[in-house]
């Protein structure tokens, strides 16, 4: 209808055929037709869904989120028990997804950069090994790698039982504080004798805040030093001060709240105390890291190769050492080529974390999209929420990284 209104206002002598032939109106015609078709399609789908749901005696109702979940989750970043609601179970899953995605992105970047550089190494053995690693992981389904790595870890590492007895087959590392078992890695945790307002969470938040403030302060110091170097050519030694600014307050706070180490100890079937990094998390993390790392390695290699050789020769001619050449000349230029594909690798990793199901890592796919849907039969609502979560996460990540990409991009004109 809008088309006709618009067309009607045209200068006199408007003919209907102008809608098809006149460039001024044609695009409107096409869009109007497309819009109508689209609306019809949506109406048709929604109508079908409503009819089908009513035939099966179902409705669309998110009330199930408020009912008792009834199942246990092993890794919970927020307190959770089987008597909590499905909504809370979903939140636990979301946090677990974000955790493994976050850890994976960091580790995959490190692995990818190292492997990409190593693949260009003149050491024949190392570059060959890296080629095998990259091709091996790029050409075999991730699902298979996740399953295999999980199984290798459970077969290859000692059972908690092996730590028992007078002459145990396995022993703890680092002065009896770290235990590597096939159920996960137990590391000492930090305990507060007098936590802030009785809550460990708030205490950690305060300490984190102190570290952040320290980092900001350290940046100010660095900026001043830079300015001084610009002005006088001398660079004052600032690193002890900066280190103290970052770590000092945090250490002081730890001391104030009476922080102590809580070492894991073998008690009953398992180690108790400390922090338990479960094998499902480690295996998933490891598999995602190695898989995505292989792709990132190729991006990094391509990025480094894209910097022309003249750049490093010029840098050498200026008398820069190889390390400075890499960090000041090659990498900044390579980054422009590396970052855009890196963003999509991060997105892939986040989405791939939904394979957590294969190793029993309770991510949002396994809680909300798995057990909850299965127990409540609310597949339409559950899938909708699940898709929405992934969509929002992906869009957020890509938006953030695109901002970063814009800041390192070559400024043209």
């Amino acid at each position, binding site marked *: 209808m809008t088309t006709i209104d618009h067309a009607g206002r045209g200068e006199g002598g408007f003919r209907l055929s102008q809608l098809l032939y006149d460039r001024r109106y044609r695009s409107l015609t096409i869009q109007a037709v*497309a819009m109508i078709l689209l609306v019809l399609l949506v109406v048709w789908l929604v109508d079908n869904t409503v009819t089908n749901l009513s035939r099966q005696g179902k409705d669309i109702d998110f009330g199930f989120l408020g009912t008792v979940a009834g199942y246990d989750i092993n890794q919970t970043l927020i307190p959770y028990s089987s008597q909590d609601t499905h909504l809370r179970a979903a939140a636990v899953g979301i946090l677990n997804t974000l955790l493994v995605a976050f850890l994976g992105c960091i580790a995959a970047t490190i692995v990818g950069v190292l492997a990409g550089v190593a693949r260009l190494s003149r*050491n024949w*053995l190392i570059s060959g*090994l890296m080629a095998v690693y990259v091709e091996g992981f790029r*050409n075999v389904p991730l699902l298979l790698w996740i399953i295999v790595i999980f199984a290798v870890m459970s077969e290859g590492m000692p059972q908690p039982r092996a730590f028992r007895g007078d002459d145990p087959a396995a022993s703890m590392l680092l002065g009896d504080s770290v235990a590597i078992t096939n159920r996960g890695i137990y590391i000492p945790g930090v305990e507060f004798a007098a936590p802030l307002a009785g809550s460990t969470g708030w205490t950690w938040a305060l300490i984190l805040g102190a570290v952040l403030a320290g980092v900001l302060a350290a940046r100010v110091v660095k900026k001043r030093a830079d300015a001084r170097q610009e002005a006088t050519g001398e660079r004052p030694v600032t690193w002890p001060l900066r280190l103290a600014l970052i770590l000092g307050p945090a250490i002081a706070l730890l001391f104030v709240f009476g922080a102590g180490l809580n070492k894991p100890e073998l008690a009953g079937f398992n180690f108790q105390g400390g922090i338990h990094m479960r094998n499902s998390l480690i295996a998933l993390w490891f598999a995602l890291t190695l898989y995505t790392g292989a792709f990132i390695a190729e991006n990094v290699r391509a990025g480094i190769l894209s910097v022309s050789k003249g750049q490093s020769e010029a840098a050498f001619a200026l008398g820069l050492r190889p390390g400075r050449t890499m960090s000041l000349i090659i990498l900044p230029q390579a980054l422009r080529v590396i970052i855009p594909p890196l963003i999509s690798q991060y997105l892939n990793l986040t989405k791939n974390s939904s394979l957590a199901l294969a190793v029993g890592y309770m991510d949002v796919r396994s809680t909300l999209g798995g057990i909850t849907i299965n127990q409540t039969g609310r597949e339409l609502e559950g*899938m909708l929420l699940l898709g929405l979560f992934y*969509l929002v996460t992906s869009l957020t990540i890509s938006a953030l990284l695109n901002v970063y990409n814009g800041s390192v991009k070559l400024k043209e004109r």
Partner: protein
Amino acid sequence: MSDTHAQTAAFQASFVREEMVAASPPPARDRGVVKWLRENLFSSWLNVILTVLGLLAIWWIASHVFPWMLRGIWVADSLSECREIRNERYGEGVGAACWAVLTERWNQLMFGFYPQDLYWRPVAGVAFFVAALMPILFSRLPRWTLWFSAAAPFVAFWLIWGGTIWAPVVVAGGFALGALAYVALSNVNQIAATLAAIVVPVLFWLFAAGPLIGALQSAIPLAIEFVPSDDIGGFLLAVIIGFSAIILSLPLGILLALGRRSDLFIISKVSVAFIETIRGVPLIVWLFTASLLLNYFMPPGTNFDLMLRVIIMVTLFASAYIAEVVRGGLAALPKGQYEGADSLGLDYWQSMRLVILPQALKISIPGIVNTFIGLFKDTTLVVFIGLLDPIGLSNAIRATTAWNGIYWELFIFIGLLFFVCCFAMSRYSMYLERKLAREHR
């Protein structure tokens, strides 16, 4: 002779070299194996350490895995029989692979439950399909071979599923009708022609195709045995899902890419929304949607099998990725090409068809192949919705009393299978990239 003697004497030289000394070999440290080793493995302390670590890693893996693999037992009927043979040959507790599961279940891992006497059909279908891809992949082949490529999906479909030959023929006829309608109307009006090219085939398939197939089949019965989708499994399933999704998603992906770059506000926004939504959500969620929800979106009473729903969903999924690849290709073309096409007076579709897309698609092929590799690997995810792909079958095989407890052998086999296929494809895409780089210089 005497002359020379005299000259020699005249110079009073105590020694004259009369022939070249044989070139002495370079110092031991700069030649042969040693040089190679020095330069390639031990050029610096860091490299020495890396080399030693690398060698240790290789040795450690090889010493653990190779004996187990080489001791493998190839003929047995069950895992327990394997264990007996192993105990007999190597003694109890020695690790030995039981490859017998592969020899016994080879057919199942490749074809699922496809009727055994009809194995030639999927093999021929896939072979024909791959052969028909060649004209697209290697531009040196004569252009008329492209007609084979156009026919390939229908031939492959008919060979794999069977049934009456008229079904694929009539469906292909729908495309021909669309092309006819386009040609007939293109002199009159471009938009009308484009619309007709879409509407005519759809109407034909919706209303005329069914009765026509029935009529043709009763008039000239030409049919081979029908194989239901439930019987298709194993590697064949992965190949079918992968291939059909990539073929079906290409046209859709190109349209989406054009839509995203379009000046028309609504069309470009709808394309962007579609692409980003699909790409923002993991494939496994889409697969569950296909399995749990797709039936809700269809008219009541519609019911078509899971494999088709999966193919539809994977096609939509792949089309979003293809769209991004094609968009990259479109963006990489110099603006002069667009302007040149416009200056010739070509309209939008003509300029796309004759000038832009041929070039853009050519540079997008490596990306499309990479998308396909990713998609092909991702077909393993269908195991989560109960389809029997190789991984799903490995679970089913383990559920029989004969093979319960077998683990690594199946995974190693499946991994190798995928590796060989994907590696070959990735080599092809690298070959293309190099070739394109040469041509563009």
